[in-house]
Each structure stands twice: as structure tokens, then as C-alpha cells.
């Protein structure tokens, strides 16, 4: 069970959070202009890497804010947490 550093509240137990899958998947600016394949990629396709993963979490039982977590999927180590809108950090450890 992780200890997660909420960018707003600090370190808290994992039970206060929930995970919402991969982050940095932007909703197409104008969905009407994308083709089925591109729309399908936005809806269904995720990278599922063995290694560094960027994912969205919410501090449900706390500040209720969404933020990003950079986690290594093999070691389960959380490398970094950062707020929504912040730039995606470097993919250093893979």
C-alpha cells in the first residue's frame, strides 16, 4: 500500500486516493474533426508500459483534487507527483 504525496496536502495513505488510469491523454480539441481511429485511440488505447507510468489520481478523502503520479510499474516506486497542467516529467529511468 503506497504512501502518496498529494501536491496539495502532503504525504497520505493510499486508502485516501483513487487511481484513474493513464494521464496526459488529451481530449481532442475538436472531436468532430478526428477520424474513428483517432477517436478510438483517445477512448480505448493506453500504453500499459513495463516501467515508468504517468497516471491520474484523486485525493478523494482529502482535498478532492486531481493530480498526476509518475510511478514505476515494476518496482511500484512513486517517483514524483505533480499538479494537473504541469508538464510531463522526463522519462528517465526506463
Amino acid at each position: 500500500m503506497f504512501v502518496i504525496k498529494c501536491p496539495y496536502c502532503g504525504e497520505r495513505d493510499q486508502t485516501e486516493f483513487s487511481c484513474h488510469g493513464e494521464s496526459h491523454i488529451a481530449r481532442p480539441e475538436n472531436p468532430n474533426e478526428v477520424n474513428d481511429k483517432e477517436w478510438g485511440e483517445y477512448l480505448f488505447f493506453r500504453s500499459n508500459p513495463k516501467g515508468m507510468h504517468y497516471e491520474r489520481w484523486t485525493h478523494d478523502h482529502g482535498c478532492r483534487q486531481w493530480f498526476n503520479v509518475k510511478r514505476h510499474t515494476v518496482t511500484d516506486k512513486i517517483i514524483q507527483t505533480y499538479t494537473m497542467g504541469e508538464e510531463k516529467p522526463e522519462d528517465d529511468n526506463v
Partner: protein
Amino acid sequence: MFNRNRLISGGSINRNKPINFKFNGQSLNGYEGDTLASALLANDIHLIGRSFKYHRPRGILTSGSEEPNALVQLGKGSKTEPNARATEIELYEGLEASSQNCWPSVKYDIGALNNLFSRILPAGFYYKTFMWPPSAWMFYEYFIRRAAGLGEAPKEKNPDRYEQKFFYCDVMVVGAGATGLAAALAAARSGANVLIVDEKPEMGGYLISSKAKINNIDAKDWIKDTLTELNSLSNVTVLNRTTATGYYDYNYITALQKVTNHIENSNSKLPRERFWRIRSKQVILAQGAFERPLVFSGNDRPGIMMASAGQVYMSQYGVLPGNSITLFTNNDHAYTVAVDAISKGAKVVVIDLRSNVSSEITKLCEKNKIETYNSHAVISTHGSQKVNSITLQELSEDKQSFVGEAITINTDLLLMSGGWNPAVQLFSQSRGKLRYDDQISSFVPDVLVDNQYVIGTNNGDFNLKQNLIDSQNAGISAAKETGNKKDIDEFISEANEPNEFTTSDVVPYVLGSKPVTHGSKHFIDFQNDVTASDIFLAQREGYISVEHTKRYTTTGMATDQGKTSNVNALAIMSHIQKKPVGEVGHTTFRPPYVPQTFGAIAGRNVDQYFDPQRLTAVHQWHKDNGAVFEDVGQWKRPYFYPKNTETMKEAVNRECLAARKSVGILDASTLGKIDIQGPDAAKFLNLIYTNAWSKLEIGSCRYGLMCNEHGMVFDDGVTTRIGENHYHMTTTTGGAARVMSWLEEFLQTEWLDMKVYCTSVTEQWTVLSICGPKSRDLLSSLTDEKIDNESLPYMKMKSIKVCGVEARVFRISFTGELSFEINVPARYGKYVWDKVIEAGKKYNITPYGTETMHVLRAEKGFIIVGQDTDGSATPSDLNMDWIVSKKKEDFLGKRSFIRSDTAREDRKHLVGLLINDKKTVLPEGSHIVEEASKKPPMKMSGHITSSYFSPTLGYPIAMAMLKNGKNRHGETVLIPLMDGKIIEATITDSVFYDKEGVRQND
């Protein structure tokens, strides 16, 4: 009192406090400080129970939590506990325990016939034999479960109380043997907050029963001094009777503390057990090692025990479990036990598998007059309910055959020692990596996880002095890591013990009087009755990987998780596959380390505390008026209000008709309510809902559907514009939290520049929904404002005073009747409700529950998201194209409507069904078929989502999701029921009543 095997002195039992207990109905006694196992041995009782599969007589193998054999049914009635390890049960006055898995008694057990047939009951027997026909498995299983098994679960509810505790510390030490204590002391003196736990009542580990010296004083005294200091420090928590059961990511450790298990009829306010949930910055594992059994024919007989256990019973409990003792060993450690046993007055013979022993050992044996057989093996054991003699034979140089004659000698206790296995279970749970160590022939920690130390024998190191120094350093280093850098003096100067364990060969199995592959009883896993021949069989049949061998033979899969068996099983696999044990690999250890009560895991979260209950402000009134409640999420909602002896159907019919003919009242407070404000609120709603919101006037209400990005409907509700930048959104009762999260998700992750604020106000408002032709008359009598059709038309909201309370009155309808939803602040909810009921008496106001609400809305064809939809329906599938804006550029889900599958014409559509016989109420969930046959399978083309008897119409109605249903109105479909009847129904529009909406629009 008299204990036949009790020594006249010695041990840490309290001889001034005799304790009476019962085993299998027999009254016995022991002393305070005894375990059930030590007390039984003191009374010369070795036969404890029958084994899992072959019903073989079994005794006590160990003295600790790794015990696979001595499992008993403890206590009676609602407090009974199955599979309790006799080696861990502390004796208390009035304790009652009995043998398991035997009938009629442990001495004469019918199931023992399995032992005679064991040649035809090898590993995989059940899979091979009971495969056909597949449908008969349930029948076989009943008998198999009865024949093979362990104890019985209590049939009544457990009356005990369990607690949970969260705990945070700098350094947690698991195990309070010498090394654990040294590490804890070092960390504590350095200033860290320390928690040290140990599973035993008495701390000190194996050194309590040894003659070791630390800093030139008896180890026992050093332990006592160390504990005294630890207990005196405010930064240290010392927990005995506490087993660390799980080790998870980021040093999260669970531990089970026995608080009053060992106290008879505890009347105190203390719980039975306390479940600790610990987060420690640094963890030091000091759990020690388990002695490894030797694998030989008949090694499971009562009276055969681990050498270390024999020593513990002699030294710690003052019990000599046998007078004529044989030690069977492959290492030096056993000789310490031999010397101890001789000093207690026993006659001792040592059988050593090794050809040569060191000169010190030879001298030791000469000095103590110990009879020894080098290069010999025990090839069989004898005795029906307890060992009484053994047969041994000399081994050839290469240990592959015998030389010389077999000798049989009498013995009443056989102690065995096959080396030591570090207790790496918790370490492995933490994802630490193991490596095989040839020196000690076992697995040891290799790659540690972050912020973790493994010390002493737990790490595979067996030099006492070095271990203590390492432990001290680990304690200092762990404390430093947590910022506690106080300089401390080194406190370990000297330590030694009489006979240190050095090395042992790995002996996969010992040759027996018959080949090991031929159903011989070389036991490996005592608890699951797995023998060496089962491992051979698994290899022969191709279950070669360690994971397959484990599952095929079930070795290591009992509740002891193979603490005594795993390494031996791997050694045999290595022997058969002719590759090193390290390459055979090992299976993964899982929590819990020892069996753990469900009660402790649940803690206080039982009964009404299992899940929070949400009650409306009017809840007490519903109770007082006889409501039957229904759970909707966490809410308790009135289901219906039966009068006198009314059945549910009668009550619902009455409620429905009252709502249609006069006035009904529903407590709608549970509906989700979200207050949305901000300059971009309208723009936001336009993206969230499928229909258009920009032009909604202040004071107007609009129904909306929400879709997810796949274009599937996931919630609906009415949203009202309260002010220029202010909206009041309602959601389904069950979907409120989900919708709130959905709104927050898009505001926080996609549209960060939008100025919109959402606040859940579900609990801030009490909602009284009054409906029926008389509802306007009723409301008029409670307010001074005009509420006629011009002043408050359909789908409008007005802020007025109702019963003198500021209220928002929405003219919306979920029943198809003239209806008003009166929202008042929750603190006035009960007051206004009472007033409305009082004033409504004139109109025979009838409270109605969720069932009537469902019937009324179904008559009108209104959907319930989550009942008529299942996350795979688009608005179009629900015939709700009218609510999907064609003009809007974008909204959530829009793009998915033109995906080929979503745009398909023959998807499942919502339809109404009229049952041709006009009387059958179809069960919800029934399948719809085109062609019926006598029995399944039949091709399914849809299913019933809602089905009721309509009191208004006088016949049953149903809603269904049906393939291509939109285009099939007027056709007949078939619905086969569970009882074999086939019902015919006609497809119709889903609006059954008042299609024009005259009643609600007035």
C-alpha cells in the same frame, strides 16, 4: 497435581499456579506459562489429531507458529476456533480443546482407512477420479469435503469484539529474539520511535532455552535487562503476543495482537484481538529461522518432533517429553539438545547422517556418554499411536544404498534436525528477493527493498556475537535514516553459545525400507499430507515447474504455508531434476504469515457499522408510520407503507391510485443535488449534457441526459437555472457521487480555464415531492403565493415561503401527475413534512415509497438510469433522440454517436411490452426469445428491465431492451420463465399512460 513428564524444576512456568483444562473431555492440569502443547506433553499425551487426507495419527512437531500437526478445535459454541495451533495456545483455567478430523475418536478413527488405501490416493487423485461426469462434482465434493478436512467453523455469530489500531513509527522491529532486542535497543537509544513485536508471550526467542552468554552474563539475564530498559523508554512500544502477518509496499505492516485470547471468560472491556496497521519508516526483520525436518519413512508419527522443539519443552516448560530419546540429525546443533536431555535424566542415542563429525563433537559425546551411530539413517518408525521403536541402517559411502544389517531400537521420542530455514516469509512478501545459500542449504534474503534490514538467523547468519553486533549497527543505522542521530556507545562486547549451528548438507530424503517412489510415507508437508512420492509423481507426470508441483501436490498450500516443508520439497525436485535447488526456484509467499481471524480484519466495521447509513431528515416519521425500507446506495428509503395486514402489492396499488386520484407524498431528499456556480456554468452544462442549456431562462427547469465519452447514458436529472450564473443540478440517488466526480474530473483535468464551482448539496435540502390532482390545492393552503398554472407552469421553479419556511418549489414530475417538489433547508425538513401531512389529511394524503414511484414512472415510460440502462445504451437506443442537440458543436459523448457500432440501426432499443394474457407480471431480468424450445439454450434477443402490475391501467406492463425493438412495434415476442412457462408479449411504445402529458402539464 501430577504431570508424568514434568521435570522437578526448571522452565519459566509458574509452579505455584496449577491450571485445570480438558482435552477430548479428559480433565488434565498444567501450570501457568504452559502452552496447550507443553501441558499435553507433560501429561504424556502425544496423539493430538488425525491428518488431513490419510487420517494418520499426529502429534506435536514444533513449539511455535510453524506447527503443521497439532491443530485442535479450541473452545465451544459461538467462540469455538478451528485449527488452533496447540503450540501457540496459552493455557488458561477451564480451557477445552479437542482433536480434529477424526470420528468417533482420535484413537479409533474410521477415516484412517484412507491410510490403508493410500496407494490409490496419490497427488491429483481427486482430479483424475472425479472428473466425469462434470455435473457430478458437486455430489462428490460433499463427501470429499467431509472426509478430508480440518476443524469446524462456529455455527453461531462470534460474540467477541475486535479492534483496529493505526500506528506510525520510525523503526519497527519484527521479532524479539536477541538480535531483535539488540536492534531495538540501539534504535531506541539513538532517539528513534521504536515498535518491537514478537509472537510469543515471552520475549527472547530461542535464547531463553539456551545456555548462551551475552556480555559475559546469561543470555536470559541480558534479555531481561534489555526488556526492562526498552519498557522504561517512552519512545518504545513493546508488544508481545503480536504477530506481523502482512508486509506490503512502503513498509506497511499488519500485525495481529492477541489481547484476551488466553484469558478465560474475559469480562474486561478489552477486545479479543487487536489488528495493528503499521507504517514504519524503517523495518528491521529479526524473525529467526525454523528448523527443517528430515524426510524419512514414517517421520510423521506422534513422538517425533523437531530437536529445537524438544529443547524448548525441556528448558522453557520443564517437560521431558520422552525418557529414551533418539536424535536424528545432519548437523552439530542437535548435539546441544542431546547434552541438555542427558542433563535432565534422559537416555540419548544420536543417529547422524554424516560419516564424519568434528573432534569436538566426538569428545562431547564421549564426555556425556552419548551413544552415536554415524553414517546411519532411520529407515522406518513403529508404534500405532505413538512411536515406540525405530529401525536404522548404515549408509554406504555415497549414501545411495545400505550396508550392513538393519537394527531396531526402542525409543519413546525421536528428535530430528535437518538444518535451519530462515523465516523469509515476510521478507518475501515485501518483494525482497531470495537466493539459495549452499552453506546452510536454504533460501536467504538477497536483494532488500527500500528502508529495510534483515538481521541474524533471519538473514542466514548463525554466529551469535556477529549477529548481535550487526543488529546493534542495523538499529543505529535505521535510526539515523529517520533523523535520529544521537551518538550511542556500543553495547555488545562478547557473546557465545555452547554449540553453534554451522552448516548442514541438504538431504532431499533419507532412503527407506522400500523405495520412496512406491507410496512410501516420507512426509514432506505434514499438514496437507504430501509425501516425497507425491513429488516424484508430479515430476513424472510433467508438473515440473515449482508452481505446478505446488498446486498438483498441494505441498506448502496448507494454512502453515509450508514453513516446515517448502525447502524439503524443493530439495527433492532438485534431486529429481538434477539441477541446483536455486535453479528450481521457489513459490511466492503471501500474507498472512499465520492464519488470521476475519473478526480482526473487520474490526469494528460490522453490523450497522459495516457501511455508513444515510438517513433523511424525515426518517423517524417514516419509521413511525410503518415504512418498509429499501437500501439505495447507503440511503435508507421508504419502499412502501403497508397498512395493517396489507401485502406489498396491496400497499403499492393503494399508494399508486392515491397519487393518481388525489395526492401522494414522497420523500425525495435522497436525490443527488449539486450547486453549480460561476460565469462559465452554462458553457460547462452544454458540454456535460446532451441537450442545449444556453437559452434556459432563470427560474426554468430542464431535463438532461449525461453520456460518457463512449456515448452511453450514465445519469439523468433535472437542472434548474437559479440565477445568472447559478444552477441547481439533480442526479439519481445512486449516481450522485459519481456525477460529482465526473464534473470535477473535467473541470480539473480538461477545462482548467473554466470558472465553474460545484458543491454537493444533497444533504442540505429536504425534498417533499407531492403529486396528484389535489397537489396544487394542498400547496396553495400552505403558501401565500400564487401557484396556478400561469404563475408556476410546468418545468418552472419559484422561490416562495411554504409553511413559513423559505423554499424552492419546482414544478417537475416523475410520475406524470401534476407535481411539486418542495425543497426546504434540511433543518426545517421534518417541520414542513409534518405540516404538509397535517394539511393533506383533507385530501387523504398518502405517503408512498420507491416501489410506487417506480410503478408510476413506468406507466409514463420514464427510464431509471441503472435499471433500464446498463451502461451500453445510447440516448437513441432509449428513443430519446429528442434530447440530443443537433446544433451543439461538442458535448461529452457526441463524437461516439457516429462510431459504426453506436450508429448501427439494429442495436438493442428500449420498448414497452404488453403481456398478452393481461395478468402475468414478468420477473425483471427475464430473457426475451424469438423461438422457444423446451429447455435452454435459446437465442436471446433482449431482456426485461422493468416490470410491474399497473394499478392505474389494471394490467401488467413491462419495459425491455430488445434487439431492433424500435422497428418492431406490434410484433409478438416470447419470454420463457424459470418454471418452464412461456409468456407471450406484444411490443409497444414504452409510454403506457397519458401519452400527451395532459396531467403533468395541467
